């Protein structure tokens, strides 16, 4: 049941109707039952894994909380009988027990994720026999495992850090992890941002529902009109790249960037729109990423919840760890102050992006994805003093519009190349595609033939180009602080209904409807 299917629309209408019909105390139960019904439809017996994660994390969080409470109670009762050394030793012992409890919860769930998602890849790369590898063929990845595992572990770490108390209601906690809107492609939500919204009853508000539906329609437009149409051409070229010349491969790289953005952000818009109807505000996952002027800024605008999660639970803990403090001192003594403080940040950055890369999947393509992004950002950090000197000498006006546009185009080109390599059938295929661009440019006639052969045709190309322009215009307005849905809601009823019906018409008339049905969302595979 993909988000873009009629079954899903029917499911949403049923859930929303039930949600607003039942008494307040039962609304969260409707969401819980709907979530597990949805999950079971997608994963059947593999539902056992999300149940395992829910149970282990729920128990671990309460255990950590109990250890803290017991320790505080004990110290309050006995601090007059204990000297400073004894108090220090007791606190250290409590911290150790809490840490071991946390580590048990983390390893149990990460272990499952690593085995299910990366087991076969690891076995293949350490050259085990084909019998051993074949014995893992039964492994199917449970839907959303990368998303809900990270979400669960973030919650557990936050409880350990004392950010909030553990949830003592197993069923409510189950809803937080299994909420059907986020299970397929995120966002990876934080407990303090989402849970209370899920548990709290919400009333139906017409204006809010209108806004939500408009956001959903926009998401469907991006997915069905832009992403699925671009996929016709990109899948053809990526499948048989040897048959295509430079200009055709460049178009495939650009269209793949458009495709993955339309697909992923479109899916998130659909999710957020439905959540809005229910009165729930889900985390923003995209913030006009193609306006990013650097790769570092791009990652603050693209898949924001994953970047934010890895920043809070991997990057910052690494930088603040005792090991990295020693490393910083050693680098500082050996290489001076600037490199001493920058190199540890670069090492953490590369580790961070390696995790982001392999989070996406078990292949060398994703390892490359992570290392490339981390490497580019780290190089930028290391060479910052050099860039500053060049800017000073050349008197470059870095505040000018032209410079900003140049940076945006540069970032877009660099990341499109990286994405092209990552999306290729293999790393070597990706690099071959890159080399082909330089070797044989091709011609416009061949490009036109390729567009027609892909099934998109001249008319399809015009639709795609126009739709992409519309999307760009909307994003330019948003980047300039204009809230489009709010602006539309302030217009008179005729303008509002023209907008709604215009979008519905555009989706129904221009949507891609290939013979094998609507394409699944790209990020559903993660």
């Amino acid at each position: 049941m993909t988000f873009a299917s009629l079954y899903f629309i029917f499911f949403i209408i049923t859930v929303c109707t039930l949600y607003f019909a039942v008494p307040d105390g039962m609304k969260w139960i409707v969401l819980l039952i709907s979530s597990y019904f949805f999950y079971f439809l997608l994963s059947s017996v593999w539902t056992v894994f999300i149940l395992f994660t829910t149970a282990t994390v729920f128990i671990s969080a309460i255990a950590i909380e109990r250890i803290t409470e017991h320790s505080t109670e004990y110290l309050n009762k006995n601090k007059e009988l204990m000297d400073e050394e004894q108090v220090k030793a007791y606190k250290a012992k409590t911290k150790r027990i809490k840490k071991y409890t946390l580590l048990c919860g983390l390893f149990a769930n990460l272990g499952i994720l690593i085995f299910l998602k990366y087991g076969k890849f690891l076995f293949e790369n350490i050259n085990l026999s084909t019998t051993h590898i074949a014995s893992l063929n039964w492994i199917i990845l449970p839907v959303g495992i990368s998303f809900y595992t990270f979400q669960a572990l973030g919650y557990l770490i936050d409880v350990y850090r004392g950010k909030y108390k553990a949830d003592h209601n197993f069923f409510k906690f189950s809803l937080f992890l299994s909420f059907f809107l986020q299970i397929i492609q995120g966002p990876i939500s934080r407990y303090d941002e989402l849970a209370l919204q899920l548990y709290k009853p919400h009333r139906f508000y017409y204006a809010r529902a209108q806004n939500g539906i408009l956001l959903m329609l926009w998401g469907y437009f991006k997915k069905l009109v832009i992403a699925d149409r671009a996929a016709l051409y990109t899948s053809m070229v990526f499948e048989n790249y040897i048959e295509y010349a430079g200009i055709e491969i460049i178009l495939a790289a650009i269209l793949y960037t458009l495709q993955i953005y339309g697909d992923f952000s479109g899916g998130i818009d659909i999710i957020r729109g439905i959540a809005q109807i229910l009165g729930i505000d889900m985390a923003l996952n995209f913030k006009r990423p193609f306006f990013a002027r650097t790769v570092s800024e791009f990652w603050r605008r693209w898949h924001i919840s994953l970047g934010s999660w890895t920043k809070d639970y991997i990057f910052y803990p690494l930088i603040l760890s005792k090991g990295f403090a020693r490393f910083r001192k050693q680098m500082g003594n050996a290489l001076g102050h600037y490199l001493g403080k920058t190199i540890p940040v670069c090492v953490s950055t590369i580790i961070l992006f390696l995790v982001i890369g392999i989070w996406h999947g078990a292949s060398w393509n994703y390892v490359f994805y992570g290392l490339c992004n981390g490497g580019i950002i780290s190089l930028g950090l290391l060479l910052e003093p050099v860039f500053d000197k060049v800017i000073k000498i050349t008197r470059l006006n870095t505040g000018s519009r032209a410079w900003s546009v140049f940076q945006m185009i540069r970032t877009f080109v660099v990341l499109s190349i990286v994405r092209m390599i990552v999306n290729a059938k293999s790393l070597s295929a990706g690099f071959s595609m890159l080399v082909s661009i330089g070797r044989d440019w091709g011609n416009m006639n061949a490009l036109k033939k390729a567009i027609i052969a892909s099934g998109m045709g001249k008319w399809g190309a015009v639709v795609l180009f126009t739709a992409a322009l519309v999307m760009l215009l909307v994003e330019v307005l948003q980047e300039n602080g204009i809230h489009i849905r709010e602006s539309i809601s302030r217009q008179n009823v005729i303008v509002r209904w023209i907008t709604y019906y215009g979008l519905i018409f555009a989706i129904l008339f221009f949507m891609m409807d290939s013979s094998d049905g609507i394409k699944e969302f790209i990020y559903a595979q993660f």
Partner: protein
Amino acid sequence: MKVTIEKIYEILNEIIPGIDFKIETKLVDSDILDSFDIATLAAELEDIFDIEITVNDLVPENFNSGLSIYELVLNRQNE
């Protein structure tokens, strides 16, 4: 070393030159300080002032201005 607001401004100027940290109050919210800058800054503050900063401290409220950074360090030194 005992923290002073002038020392905080000096450290900030090293990390991001060209900003008037005496008047800026939205360093994180306006993306003047990104997460790499915050990480570098937190590590510097720990080394220079001999304090311990935890991940829970790395929130926008603590790093949005020179004054809030100074107060964070002062609180850690007084613990």
